[in-house]
C-alpha cells in the first residue's frame, strides 16, 4: 500500500506548490490512487490539464515521470519490452568467432538475459527502484485489442516475459491514463481504474490559474479574462476554449498592454481563444449583444 501522500489536503497543497491548482475532487482522487494502488483514468475535454496533472504529481512527489504516448498501431514492442536483436546477433557471432564450441543452451541463456532486453515504458515503470509516475497518454487512441496489453500491468502490476519469467513491481507506481473520449474504453479497463473527470474550471479557479501561470497580470484583468471565457464557453461552440487557450489569451492581452477588456478588444483577439472560423464568427456576433442567447 502506498503511503507516499499524507492526505487529500496535502496533495492539494503540494500541487499548488508546483503551480497546479487542483480542486477538491482531483486532490481526493489522486490521494485515493496512492492509497488503493489503483490507476487513475482522467477524462475530460482537450486542454483542461489532464496530462499536466500527471506531470505535476510527479514534480510534487519528486518522482520520475515515465510517459507512454499512445497511438493507433502501438504494440507490445513499443509498450512493454523488446529484445535487442542486433546485440544478440553480435553476441552469437562473437561467440562463434572466438572459436569456443559452446552449447546452444549456453548461448540461449546468454542472449535472453537482462542485458539484451530493451525495456519500454510499461516494463520500465514496473522495474523501477525509485519512485515513478507512469503517464499513459491518450489511451483512447489505442485499438480495443491493444488495450488488453495494459490490463495485466494495471491490475497485477506485473509483466510476463516468456524467456525471463514474470517481472513484478517492487514499488507500485502511480499511474495516470488520459483520454479525450474519442471512443468508449473497454469496461475491463474502466473497472480497474479510478475515474476522474476534469472539466473546465469555474471562474474563480480559472482566475487563480491565470494568476499563477501568467506572472505579472493584474488581478482585475485576470478576473475579467475568466469571466469572458466562461461567457464564451456558454455559447454553443464546436470547440470551446480550453484552459491553455485562456492562458494564451491572457498573455496576449498582457503583451498588448490591455488593462481592461472591452467588447472591441475581445473581438480583435478572439482568434487566440478560438480556432474555428464558425466559432469565431459566432462568438464575435454574440459578444456584441448584452443578452445571452
Amino acid at each position, binding site marked *: 500500500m502506498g503511503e507516499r501522500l499524507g492526505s*487529500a489536503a496535502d496533495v492539494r497543497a503540494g500541487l499548488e506548490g508546483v503551480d497546479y491548482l487542483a480542486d477538491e475532487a482531483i486532490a*481526493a482522487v489522486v490521494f*485515493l490512487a496512492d492509497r488503493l494502488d489503483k490507476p487513475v*483514468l482522467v477524462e475530460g475535454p482537450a486542454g483542461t490539464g489532464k496530462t499536466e496533472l500527471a506531470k505535476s504529481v510527479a514534480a510534487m512527489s519528486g518522482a520520475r515521470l515515465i510517459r507512454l504516448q499512445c497511438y493507433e498501431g502501438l504494440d507490445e514492442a513499443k509498450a512493454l519490452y523488446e529484445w535487442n536483436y542486433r546485440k544478440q546477433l553480435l553476441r552469437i557471432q562473437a561467440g562463434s568467432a572466438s572459436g569456443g564450441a559452446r552449447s546452444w543452451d549456453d548461448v540461449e541463456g546468454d542472449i535472453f538475459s537482462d542485458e539484451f532486453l530493451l525495456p519500454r515504458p510499461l516494463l520500465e515503470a514496473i522495474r523501477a527502484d525509485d519512485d515513478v509516475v507512469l503517464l499513459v497518454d491518450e489511451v483512447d487512441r489505442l485499438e480495443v485489442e491493444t488495450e488488453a496489453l495494459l490490463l495485466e500491468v494495471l491490475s497485477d502490476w506485473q509483466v510476463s516475459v516468456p524467456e525471463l519469467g514474470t517481472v513484478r513491481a517492487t514499488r507500485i507506481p502511480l499511474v495516470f491514463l488520459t483520454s479525450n473520449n*474519442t471512443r468508449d474504453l473497454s469496461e475491463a479497463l474502466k473497472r480497474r481504474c*479510478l*475515474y476522474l473527470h476534469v472539466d473546465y474550471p469555474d471562474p474563480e479557479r480559472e482566475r487563480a490559474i491565470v494568476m499563477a501561470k501568467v506572472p505579472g497580470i493584474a488581478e482585475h484583468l485576470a478576473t475579467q479574462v475568466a469571466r469572458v471565457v466562461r461567457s464564451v464557453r456558454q455559447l454553443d461552440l464546436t470547440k470551446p476554449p480550453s484552459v491553455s487557450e485562456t492562458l494564451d489569451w491572457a498573455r496576449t492581452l498582457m503583451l498588448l498592454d490591455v488593462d481592461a477588456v472591452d467588447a472591441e478588444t475581445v473581438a480583435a483577439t478572439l482568434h487566440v481563444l478560438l480556432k474555428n472560423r464558425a466559432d469565431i464568427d459566432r462568438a464575435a456576433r454574440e*459578444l456584441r449583444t*448584452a443578452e445571452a442567447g
Partner: protein
Amino acid sequence: MVDLLTGFVAELRAAGLPVALTESLDALAAVRHVDLGDRAAFKAALAATLVKRQEHRAAFDTVFEVWFSLRLPPGEALGGDDPALDGPALDADALSALVADAVETGDPAALAALARLAVSRLSGLDTGRPVGASYHLHQAWRRLDVDGALARLLGAASSGSDDGGPPGVLERRLRGDDLRVNADRLRLEVEGEIRRRLVSDRGAAAVARSMRRPLPEDVDFMHATREEMATLRRALLPLSRRLAVRLARRRRHRHRGSLDFRSTVRHSLSYGGVPAEPRYRHRRPSKPEIVVIADVSGSVAAFARFTLQFVHALSGQFSRVRSFVFVDGIDEVTRLFEGADDLAHAIQRVNTEADVIWAEGHSDYGHALTVFWERWGAELTPRTTVVVLGDARNNYHASAAWAVAEVGRRARHLWWLNPEPRSYWDTGDSVISEYAEHCDGVYECRNLRQLEHFVERIG
C-alpha cells in the same frame, strides 16, 4: 457503513448505472481512507470508484444527495418553521426584494436562507402527501418569481451603474452571466432543501425511487422535456465524434480482401522466387450515400430534427448525405446543411424554409412518398442507402406502399426508423407494417442508445 453503501449501490443500479461488484468493493475500500466528516471527499471517493462515465454523473449526484443528505432533526422535518423567518405572512414586495437581493449578491448564506424560507412557506410541502419533489420545486419556484427578478436585475444592469455612465456591452453581458449563475444556485438550494425535507419525512429509499430519471442515452425522444432535449443535444456532438472514429477505424480494418496473385509473384522476386510475402487486393473503402427522408410533422418533429442533425454531424463518414423532409408535401433540404458549420442553425432553417405543406398540414406518408419516388426516384443508385424517419401515422390516407417498394428495389438498402415503442405499431392510424414489408428493416428508435446502434450498423 457496509449496509448503507450496499443500499446506495443497489439504488444506483436501479437508476440504470452499471456498477460492477468489484467497483462496489473498491468503493468500500476507498471510503476507509477518507474522513467521513468531509462530505465532499466522501462523495469524490464514491464517484471515482462507482461512476465511470461522465454522462452518468448527474444520476449519481441525485442519488447521492438523497442517500447521504443532511438529515434534519425530526421536529423540524416538515412545516417546522425557522424561528428567524417566523412572523407575519410575507407580502409579495418583501419577498421579491429578498429574491432580488440574494440573486444580486450571490451570497451563499442569503441563498440558503431564502431557499429554506421558500420551501417552508411556499412549496406546499405536507407530511405524507405522495407528491413528487418536482411538484414542490415548481410551486416554490413559481411563487418566488426568480425569473421575474432576474429580468428586472438585468434591466437595471443595462440602464446604468453607480459610478455613472452606462457600462459597456461586454460588462453587461458578464454581469448577466453572474446573475444567472446565482439564480441557478438558488434553484439548486431550493431543490436540495426540498429533498432534505422529503428524505427526513419519507426515508431515502422512497425519495430516491420517486426521483429516478432515465439516463441521457435512455431518454425517449418523443417525451423528452425541454431540459432533457438540451442534454441530448449536448451529448450529440461528442457522440457523433466517437461514432465517426469508430466507423473510420472499422472501415480501415475490415478484412483485407482476396489474394492478389500478380502482386504476390512480383514481390516474391525479392525473396528469390519464394512467395514469402502474400499480397492482397485492398478493397476500396466504399462509403455509402445516405438519403434521409424525415417526417417533420408535430408529433415526431423533435425526433426528426435530432436525427437529421445527428446524420449530418456524421456526414464525413458517408460519401453524400441528402435530406428530405415532409408533412404531406415533401421538399429537399440538403442545401441548408451543405456548407453550414452550424447544424443547429441549419435545423432552424429547415423549420422555416422547407416547403412541406401540400394540402392540410397533417402527415400524409402516401402522398409524400409518391412525390418522392416520382421526382427523385431516378436519382437513387445501388450505392444509396435510404432511411425513412417517422411513426407511419398516416391519418387514414392511402398508404401508397408501392412507392416504398419501388424505392426499396432501387436503393441498396431501405431502413425505417420508428420513434414509437414497438407495442404501439399498427395501432390506430399507424400503417407501419404495410411499409415494413418493403423495407430491409424497421427499427424502433426511441433513444440515443438505439440511434447509435443503428448508425453503427449502416456505416
